[in-house]
C-alpha cells in the first residue's frame, strides 16, 4: 500500500494507516532533526508533535499543494524553527549546548571517540548557523525529496535554495575550520 493511500486513510481516522505513515517517516524525520543539530530529547518531542499534528490535521491535507513528504517535512521544520527561536534555547546555545548522542554503530573505541568528537564539533558549529540555514542543510539530506520540494518547504525558489545551500555550507565549513585551527 502506498503512502498517499495511507495518508488518505489516516484522514478517515484509520489508526493502522497512521501507524504505517509514522513507521515510513520516523527515520527521516529523526535524521532531519539530528542534522539540524538538535539533541535526541528535543528531536523526540518535535517528531512526536509532528506526527500528532499530522494526525489532527489529516483531513485538511490537500495533495494539490504538495505530497505527504513535503507536508510532513514542513510541519517538522516549523516546529524545529519554533523550538530554536525560544529564548531559553538561545541561552542554552550561548552557554554551550549539550552535544547530541551520536550512534556509535559498535565501532572500535578510538573510532567511536573520534566520531563523537567530530559530532560535538559539528553540533557546536551548527549552533552558530542561522536556524533557517540549519533547516535547509538538513532538508538537503532528506530522502526522496528534490530541490523543487525543498523550495516549497522553505517558501522560496529553487534557485534561491541552491544559493542559500551553497552559502550555508561555506559558512559551516568556515566555522569548522576556525574551530579546528
Amino acid at each position, binding site marked *: 500500500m502506498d503512502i498517499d493511500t495511507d495518508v488518505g486513510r489516516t484522514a478517515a481516522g484509520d*489508526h493502522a494507516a*497512521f501507524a504505517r505513515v509514522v513507521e515510513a517517516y520516523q527515520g527521516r524525520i529523526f535524521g532531519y532533526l*539530528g542534522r539540524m543539530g538538535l539533541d535526541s530529547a528535543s528531536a*523526540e518531542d518535535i517528531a512526536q508533535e509532528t506526527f*500528532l499534528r499530522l494526525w489532527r490535521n489529516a483531513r485538511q491535507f490537500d495533495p494539490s499543494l504538495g505530497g505527504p513528504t513535503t507536508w510532513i517535512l514542513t510541519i517538522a521544520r516549523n516546529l524545529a524553527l519554533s523550538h530554536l527561536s525560544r529564548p531559553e534555547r538561545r541561552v542554552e546555545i550561548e552557554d554551550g549546548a549539550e552535544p547530541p548522542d551520536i550512534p556509535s554503530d559498535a565501532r572500535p573505541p578510538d573510532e567511536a571517540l573520534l566520531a563523537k568528537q567530530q559530532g560535538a564539533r*559539528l553540533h557546536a558549529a551548527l549552533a552558530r548557523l542561522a536556524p533557517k540555514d540549519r533547516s535547509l542543510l538538513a532538508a538537503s539530506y532528506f530522502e526522496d525529496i528534490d530541490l523543487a520540494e525543498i523550495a516549497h518547504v522553505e517558501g522560496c525558489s529553487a534557485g534561491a535554495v541552491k544559493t542559500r545551500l551553497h552559502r550555508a555550507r561555506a559558512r559551516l565549513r568556515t566555522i*569548522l575550520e576556525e574551530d579546528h585551527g
Partner: protein
Amino acid sequence: MADDIDSQLRALSLAPPEDFAARVTALARMTPQLKASPEPMRPWQWVSLGAGAGLGARLLGEFAFFAFVAGAAQ
C-alpha cells in the same frame, strides 16, 4: 577536516527510539482529529447568494417606499 563535511552531516543523523511509532499511535488514539475545512463556494452558489440578496434588498426597498407613501398620505 572540514572537507568531509558531507559525511559528518550524514553521520549526525538521529535514530527514533524502538517504541516511538507505537507510542505516537497510542497518543493518536486519544487525540481527536480536526474537521476538514469547508470547501470554497462554487460560482453558482455565489450567483444564488447574490440573487437572494438582491431580492431581499428590493423587498426592503418596496416596504420602505410604501411605508413612506402611506405615512405621507396620512
